[in-house]
């Protein structure tokens, strides 16, 4: 077992692999006038606001399944936390937004162990956290600190968990766990992706055990009036692909 070591102090920064996250140049896109960077880990970096955004962390999804008799490896929370910590160290954000469903169920926060709580507190000390309420976690725990809200507008953007059924310029949402299948020459690859038409965006799920919904399925297609792109997560970079 690998020990849980989440150090946020500056170390060997720059390019390279940190806790499985490739820290390298991101894909820059414009959304409702704001410039955003899409990171291959599935995180969104808004440099102008020094804001880092994650969707659908689903902490303790493993133990949630364990309660039902499927004893999945109990390492999903620390795996997710380690990747958040690596990105926080890389970008040094002032604000971190978790776009809802941060906890897999209402009891999930109670199942965190001391190490994981400490890691979360340490992250809380590093930046101002905004916990958006999700359908899995309508009431995120208050001991986490930070702001708990159903949605928040900053600059030209509005952050919420469920994408609005109406056209929503500047909306950054989660919930749908988009993923894309790309087929070429009789081979195919399936990976998580950002989905955006340049007007609004759905983030991929960031949690270690979170599955995906194909971008061509109705719930995702319905959000975009016209053509939209899938920004597919590769191991080292993000690829823009027609959805």
């Amino acid at each position, binding site marked *: 077992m690998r020990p849980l070591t989440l150090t946020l102090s500056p170390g060997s920064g720059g390019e390279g692999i940190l806790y499985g996250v490739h820290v390298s140049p991101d894909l820059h896109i414009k959304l409702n006038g704001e410039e955003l960077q899409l990171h291959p880990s599935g995180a969104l970096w808004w440099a102008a606001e020094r804001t880092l955004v994650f969707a659908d962390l689903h902490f303790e999804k493993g133990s949630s399944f364990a309660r039902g008799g499927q*004893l*999945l490896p109990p390492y999903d929370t620390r795996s997710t936390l380690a990747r958040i910590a690596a990105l926080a160290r890389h970008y040094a954000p002032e604000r971190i937004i978790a776009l809802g469903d941060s906890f897999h169920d209402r009891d999930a926060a109670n199942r965190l162990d001391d190490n994981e709580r400490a890691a979360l507190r340490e992250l809380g000390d590093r930046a101002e956290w905004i916990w958006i309420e999700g359908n899995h976690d309508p009431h995120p725990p208050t001991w986490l600190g930070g702001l708990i809200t159903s949605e928040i507008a900053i600059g030209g953007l509005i952050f919420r968990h469920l994408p609005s059924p109406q056209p929503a310029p500047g909306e950054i949402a989660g919930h749908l766990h988009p993923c894309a299948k790309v087929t070429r020459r009789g*081979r195919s*690859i399936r990976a998580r992706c950002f989905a955006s038409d340049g007007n609004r965006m759905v983030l991929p799920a960031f949690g270690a*055990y979170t599955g995906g919904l194909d971008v061509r399925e109705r719930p995702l297609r319905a959000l975009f009036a016209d053509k939209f792109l899938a920004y597919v997560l590769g191991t080292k970079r993000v690829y823009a692909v027609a959805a």
Partner: protein
Amino acid sequence: MRNNGAAAAALPPRFADWFAARGWTPRAHQLALLEHARDGESVLLVAPTGGGKTLAGFLPSLIELTETPKRARARALHTLYISPLKALAVDVARNLEMPVAEMGLDVRIETRTGDTPVSRRQRQKYSPPDILLTTPEQFSLLLSHRDANRMFEWVKTVVLDELHATINTKRGELLALGLSRLHTFAPAHRRIGLSATVADPVPLQRYLVPQPPIGEAKSALVIGQAGAKPDIEVIASESYVPWAGHMAYHAMPDVMGAIRASTTALIFVNTRAQAERIFQALWRINEDNLAIALHHGSLAPEQRRKVEAAMTRGKLRAVVCTSTLDLGIDWGAVDKVICIGAPKGAARLVQRIGRANHRLDEPSQAILVPANRFEVLECEAARDAVLAGELDGDPPRRGGLDVLAQHVLGMACSAPFDADALYREVKTASPYRALTRDTFDRVVDFVATGGYALKRYDRYAKLRRMSDGKWRISHPRIAQQYRLNAGVIVEEPMLDIKLQGKGRPVGAGGRVLGHMEEYFLEQLAPGDTFVFSGNVLRFEGIRENAAYVTRTQDPEAEVPSYNGGKFPLSTFLARRVREMLANPKMWGSLPEPVGEWLRIQEWRSIIPSPNQLLVETFPRGSKHYLVCYPFEGRLAHQTLGMLLTRRLERLRLRPLGFSANEYALAIWALRDMGGADMDKLFDEDMLGDDLDAWLAESALYKRTFRNCAIISGLIQRRGLNEEKTGRQVTFSSGLIYDVLREHEPDHILLRATYEDAGHGLLDIARLSEALRRVKGRIVVKALDRVSPLAVPALLEIAKEMVAGEAHEDILREAEEALIADAMRR
């Protein structure tokens, strides 16, 4: 048939009279088996089809049951018969009713399968029949019941049918573990194993008896009279033999002629795609409208049953089938077996040929139809082996830890267990003879709380250790979940194939044609065409749990294979093919085009000796090729290809891709690979770090992990309230693998996966042996152009896709296509 009065005297009068009335004489092996069984000994009967093998297996039980008056018997199960096929269990029960009725024996015979109604299952528990016929899965489920001992403690005999087909599989491991528990319940019972001819009966003899803590035990052995040697004809045209492909279209008129000349023919092929295509090709030339049917695993069960029923009634002239009909019910009318394509192994060929044999003293009629030049060599080698009575045997496998985990939970569902006692019991099963106590304890820990170094799941434990030291299930729900998920056959996740009208939006409804493996459908792009259930279909897309298709007029499907050959060329047959290739004296018996092909190869390049590995390099078009000929089967070659391309990449030779078939591996690159140090390139050490690095991201390996996770109970196929769809399981098992590998690489389930991959989808064990064999024996030939031997491999590059693995290059290409689209004026 010779008269054997003394032998008949060994039978009680009622049985002797019955044999006489039918004009039969008991066969020597039937009597020998009877003698062993009377002494209470377990015994293996090896005999070809048509030798009265099944009756031999039941004679001791029938006689014993008749000799003991009903009222003196316990109202208890006397004989348990276990067959790998549900249909076979039902058929054998029916056949057994005949002698029982004709002799007026007071014996109750029943079957128990997944189709048995609940009421009858309940009754079987408190009022068991004398003889119960069932499958390994049902046996395992029965043992997990709370009062299993009451049902089994009087069992006198277990009959294991088709043991050769069960032994080296996970079902065979599950069955071995079940038998170890039966031995605890009924220590005096004897076992009778029935097997087709095998190269080495000893592993089967060991399987049949409980293994002692030290040393080995084996059952008695009775070998039945050998049947007449089969007539095997290899059809290969003197004028035309295809270079590549697996369809043998050129030989269809010959096949049609053979069908016309027989009463009923079984036409065996190796893949479902082949079955579909050959079925179509035969119907295109079926001018007499002969009743030719199709049978393979993707067809709807009702359709398969219809074909089987028509076969039983003698209504069919031919059935094109896959391995689904390798085993099973005896169809009296079958008088010819036609095998299209590679036989793969001598034992498999004997098994298939045996399907046409019902009289021991008459030769079975078989025709082999090679579809390409290498297959001509393989067919000839297989025929020689069968006629020489030589067979290939797989070395016995070590029992899987995933199967053990399932068994441990099943035992806990039955009754609290003592770990020491269960460990001793499990070790009596021959596949688990070498199981260490430490591994066993880790498996128990895995079943109880997941077996993680991080102890987080004590409160969700499935098993708890009580104050008396015994392990018991923590909640009755655990037993319900176990029963819902028991079994070791993991179905690939399937999608429905829905046919929709042209021009309608994808996903807008349609008629269900059947179902296919998701992983095959995931490889398709909209517009690809493939054959299914006799139709050429155009793939439109996947929505939710269905793949949508439309009909197309295009007569040629583009995508050639799904679920390409399950069984690799056997090691034994591969050696014979290498020997035939290396010996020009044997080329004379080959068709002229094949002989000429080899002679030009000898002149232009090299014919390797049986223990050498030939590596050729040459340029062609703008690319450089490396082709090698290990003859170790597609799976091992695919693994080799993955590992070699990694190494070539490190050598900066810019490999672009590779293609593997049963005989050869071809790699193409931007730079000339001829200068590479081949001894170093092919060194065994590739099975160290390179293998490890590849496994971390291999889709095939993740599929192996998923199977182990399901069998071991980590992932449940079915919940108590809902049926989980395969799609969800596939996706999340990959993520679970990633996290487990990162945080606990020596977890017991990863070890189970690695051991499984040694023999399964990656065939690492075989590759490792091959690399050892050719060490220091690599012959390299740098050519200025393609060699004759390399042509088939190169032709397949154009036709066959490499299964399973896709790289991120695909994403880059898709992005470039998008940019190109955007920049077009």
